């Protein structure tokens, strides 16, 4: 009997879900053509924070690793783009995968010796790593990072010749296409054995190890993938602002990413989008309150955790998940 009720429930729900999805999609496409540049840029930075949220979500949401230094990977991506573009003239679009690889390599090298740490000890080490990156950028080693002034004069991404991305609308679509691709990839991972392995590790590391999962490998994989996505965000951010400086990659930026994942819902992709919306749109909407803006921001963060500790849109467990919208047949049905 349980069998029947479950199937009917999903049909109705599945149907309404897809229509809701397409409404949002069309709104996203129309939006930049109806609003002024300022609101397009606000949506652009919403996209950047969505990408950063998704990247941290792999490490914090899926595997439950307490990472408060994610801005370090974001900075590595941005500075790799800035330095290689200004000093060696490498075109930005080629730098997209390159800065992802650079951040991923950095993550692999830095995290390998410390991946065995648990909980708060891992947290302080990630904070340390983030601060080391930021201070190194300020101190301008080998005259590469331009010190506190940062690197400037980064050019726009271009598909060769005339077609150059420089207007706000083009950037809007660039970031949101990248976000859409990342979501598609992440949902695939969530449904695959890799996603499950991550969740097993989050639930109980020892049991995961005893069930045959190479815990160290999957933790490192999560950090590497998270860093790669953050590197991509860094690349797009750098080319949009045309300059990068250490002020954009502070410990507070890592805290914001942490809040995006927590407020949205750990491991839930729609949740991360809502979290990113809150973190990026809230300061702009409450800009007129200038002095009191941050007071309200702090209060709302507390209230969110009070009423929605699981996040605005927590990940559904027990069969029905956001993932089901993409899978042709229902994921966990027979």
């Amino acid at each position, binding site marked *: 009997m349980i069998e029947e009720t479950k199937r009917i429930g999903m049909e109705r729900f599945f149907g*309404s879900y897809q229509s809701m999805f397409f409404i949002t999609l069309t709104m996203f496409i129309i939006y930049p053509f109806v609003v002024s540049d300022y609101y397009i840029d606000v*949506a652009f930075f919403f996209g950047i924070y969505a990408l950063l949220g998704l990247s941290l979500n792999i490490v914090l949401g899926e595997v439950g690793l307490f990472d408060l230094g994610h801005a370090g990977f974001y900075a590595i991506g941005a500075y790799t783009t800035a330095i290689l573009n200004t000093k060696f003239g490498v075109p930005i679009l080629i730098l997209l995968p390159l800065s992802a690889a650079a951040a991923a390599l950095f993550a692999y090298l830095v995290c390998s010796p410390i991946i065995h740490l648990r909980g708060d000890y891992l947290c302080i080490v990630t904070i340390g790593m983030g601060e080391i990156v930021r201070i190194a950028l300020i101190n301008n080693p080998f005259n590469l990072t331009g010190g*506190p*002034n940062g690197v400037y004069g980064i050019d726009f991404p271009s598909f060769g010749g005339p077609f150059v991305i420089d207007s706000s609308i083009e950037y809007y679509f660039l970031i949101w296409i990248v976000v859409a691709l990342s979501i598609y990839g992440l949902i695939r991972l969530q449904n695959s054995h890799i996603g499950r392995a991550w969740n097993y590790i989050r639930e109980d590391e020892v049991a995961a190890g005893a069930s045959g999962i190479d815990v160290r490998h999957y933790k490192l994989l999560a950090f590497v993938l998270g860093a790669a996505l953050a590197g991509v965000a860094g690349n797009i951010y750098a080319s949009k602002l045309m*300059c990068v400086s250490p*002020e954009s990659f502070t410990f507070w930026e890592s805290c914001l990413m942490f809040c995006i994942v927590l407020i949205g819902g750990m491991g839930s992709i729609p949740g991360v989008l809502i979290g990113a*919306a809150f973190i990026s749109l809230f300061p702009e*909407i409450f800009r007129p309150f*200038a002095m009191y803006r941050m007071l309200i921001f702090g209060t709302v963060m507390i209230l969110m955790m009070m009423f929605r500790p699981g996040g605005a849109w927590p990940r559904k467990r027990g069969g029905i998940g956001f993932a089901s919208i993409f899978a042709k047949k229902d994921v966990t049905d027979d």
Partner: protein
Amino acid sequence: MKIMKYLAMIGVLMCICMPWNAMAAAKPVVIGLQGPITGPWAYEGQMAKQSCEIAAELINQKGGILGGRMIEVRVVDDAGEPKTGALAAQRLVTQKDVVASISTYGSSICEPASTIYEKFKKVNIGYGVTAVRLTQRGYKYFFRTCGRDDSQGQFFADVVPAKFGAKRIAIMHDNTAFGKGLAEDTKRALQPMIDDGKLMIVYYDAVTPGEKDFRVTLTKLRETKPEVWYFTGYYAEAALLVSQAREIGITCPFVGGNAAINDEFIKIAGLNIAKGCYMTNEPLPADLPYEKAKEFLKAYKDKYGEIPSSPWPIYAADALNIIAYAVDNTGSTKSDVLADYLRDKVDGAPGITGPIGFTEQGDREGVPFYLYVVDDEGNIVVSK
């Protein structure tokens, strides 16, 4: 359905940002001001806001410009951070009634902002941005009313070693865009004298802004036995450095950059320590001989009870004055007309910080530097 509720929430969030552009008021000439109203430099931002409002009031009292049109200052907060700096510029640029804008404090925030103003062909004048590179990008619409790091560095090299007969120079900066830039330019200016052996730099290092305890660094400095010590950072760290330096027995004269010494510095360090400290600085508001300066300072003091404690807000007020001056004389609010007028026609225009003129790249012409000293009664005077 719960899920639909959440999706609707995303939609609503997007609509909230739908444009409720301020209706373009026909009458007033609107000048944008972008500054760090919140964040670590909130104090600088708020002083700049107050200075611009006072400058606008003074002009409006005299009948405004373009035959009676009032000046309105529209302030946007950029929280002293590059991303919000770009967003603030975007916000001002898309409001059609904003004629020109005074853009911000802090070189690395002005960088992305000025690029956006350039793309939208909007005149923008920086007031607290001394990084040399800002005017080396060949931008048509970017100007600045404050001086540049290299001119202050050159002034230090010409005046200070000779005055104290110092052979061993110590330079310390605070790793901020402004502080490090000035330190590097000073070192470059001293290079010729170092090459022919007249003097040498015995100490060149940074302190971390926001720190409180510098005894360790200062003990290291003391061991290098400097004869003059130049600190290019802000007054908060400068006050701590000098008081702790005197406590551990560093007696060599202290020279600060143009953001190091103000009445806050004297209050924190205490008079007996601040006494005898020098500073390389553009003319301070207090002793600006110009008639416009006295009028401005009196109005500011009447309203806020004290004059601004650093030179940057004064440059913001001057930026507003020069925009109003250009709009009034050219009779138009079009950016191209204003940009050409400012670049070519303006030299010696009356300003609070002295005659205002701009070089080809948009730098402020002829910003004189003086060597100031804190005298026994605690006021900052030009030293002989």
